[in-house]
């Protein structure tokens, strides 16, 4: 069964309770006073990545998503993906190549940006498709559980 690991990278909205002090007195010699009214919204987001994927020749579809996104105006949240084995499933020196597609686009570099969300947008998702072929499977030199590790990295720039 497919497992989803919800990775809570950050989500915080710090809205402090009211704080009142009584120090600024106005009188006939000083009849104007100012105070600051403030409200803070901290940067935050939740990115959900697939925990395990069993690659097949028919393709396995998974979802990479972000929610509760709060970014400073003008900033972008990016989620990049890097393959430890350069998109090869490996076992004891035996390799089975596979591909990863973001939407309809097959990725050709070892590290790629899978998801971008600009400020003002609070959520987003993309479909990731993992796929191998019979020809690639035939390249295996050993039987066994071939694996690769994908690293998802979030950044705000």
């Amino acid at each position, binding site marked *: 069964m497919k497992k989803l690991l919800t990775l809570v990278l950050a989500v915080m*909205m710090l*809205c*402090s*309770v*009211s*704080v*009142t*002090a*009584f*120090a*600024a*007195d*106005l*009188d*006939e010699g000083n*009849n*104007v*006073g*100012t*105070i*600051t*009214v*403030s*409200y*803070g*919204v*901290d*940067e*935050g987001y939740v990115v959900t990545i697939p925990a395990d994927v069993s690659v097949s020749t028919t393709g396995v579809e998974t979802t990479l998503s972000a929610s509760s996104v*709060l*970014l*400073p*105006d003008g900033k972008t949240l990016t989620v990049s993906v890097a393959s430890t084995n350069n998109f090869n499933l490996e076992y004891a020196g035996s390799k089975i190549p596979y591909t990863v597609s973001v939407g309809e686009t097959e990725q050709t570099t070892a590290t790629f940006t899978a998801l971008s969300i600009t*400020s*003002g*947008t*609070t959520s987003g998702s993309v479909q990731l498709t993992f796929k191998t072929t019979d020809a690639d499977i035939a390249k295996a030199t050993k039987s066994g559980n071939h694996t690769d590790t994908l690293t998802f990295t979030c950044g705000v720039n």
Partner: protein
Amino acid sequence: MKKILSLALVLVMVLTMSTTAFAAEITGDSGSVDITYTYTNTNLASYVLTIPDSINLTTEESELGTVSLDITEVSEHKQVDVYISSPNFDETDDYNYPWHLLDEKGANKVPYALKYHVFDDHYATVYPDTPIFSSTEATTYSTTLRGNVKEAPVYAGNYSDTLTFTVSVLTNNAFWDSENITLTEDVAMVNDGDTFTSNKTLDLNGHTLTTSRTKVINVISGAKLTVNDSAGGGKVVNHRFACQYSGDIEINGGAFENTADVVLVQNNGKATINGGTFTRTDGAAPSNSNNDVFSMNTATAEINGGTFNGNVLVNVDGILTINNGTVNGYLVLYASGASITVNDGTFTGGIYIRDAGANLTINGGTFTGGITVENGADTSGVVIRGGTFDFDPSAWVDTTTHSVTENGNGTWTVTAK
């Protein structure tokens, strides 16, 4: 034998607070004295206003702090008002959340509500032009502020607004209690409107009577308001004089500035303008409507002088006679039944007839700007018997009794044969 009437003695007591000279010596069985109040804008008030250091908002409405006022002294005719304002106040989008926080860039706004406790569990929205508290006497006052942001913004960041608390000590409407008032210095009035049902004479005496936004003075029930400026240079700012229900106004001098019309005469009111300068200050571009400084309907008025830097507008059943003066705006006949007779004067803004059934008779004066007709109106009610024009007025001249002479300099003159 000389008689001193008890009436005079009473008046002596009443007038001890003012610097007044009057005749108290009566040679017959009865007599009268002039009652004059010389306004002196001295002594204001003593007070301490305590405000919160700062306010932090949440999306949930909550108490934000307390505003306390301790007034220990208020001078005669003075009123202590407490205002809260912000340059980011804007009720255009949502009048329930008219206050706004801005992010560091000033690019994104977060609306918030700001209320103050009125009574029981009732809170009223704070508006910059409405005091959260007013008093004409020594007292203590305290109110709790409440508020919240409308909803969390989509951008992270720190949002802030600067609230300005102002205690203003202004002259209240008791200023007008006396029949004759002479200013001895500038006077800043409260905004609250007032209604006169008895005669008043105001001598600006070279000083300024002002308020922060349009204050309406209603003159009704046969009362007459006379405004003089004996010293010259006097000014009235942000006042609108509405004469109606037999109310009467006579203006002999002074510079009047307002963001709306200065004089409104309607419902059988009456106005006589012998002098003064009347100017719109709302920054509106010259227009044949919504730019009037003098307007009237169902009333009579006479303009014998003065300068009108805006439109002079006559609406339905208004009857205006202009014997002199300068109108640097449109002369407007706004509706059927409007009637203007011009005997002399200078008119630089043109004539605008908006509705059919209006009558304009010109016996003299200097006119530039032509005649503009809109809204299905026509110029059938226009009769010209004299004056100089920067357009050919022949269409409105009975040439059997009057002549139109082209002067060769772009003007035409109408004279009787």
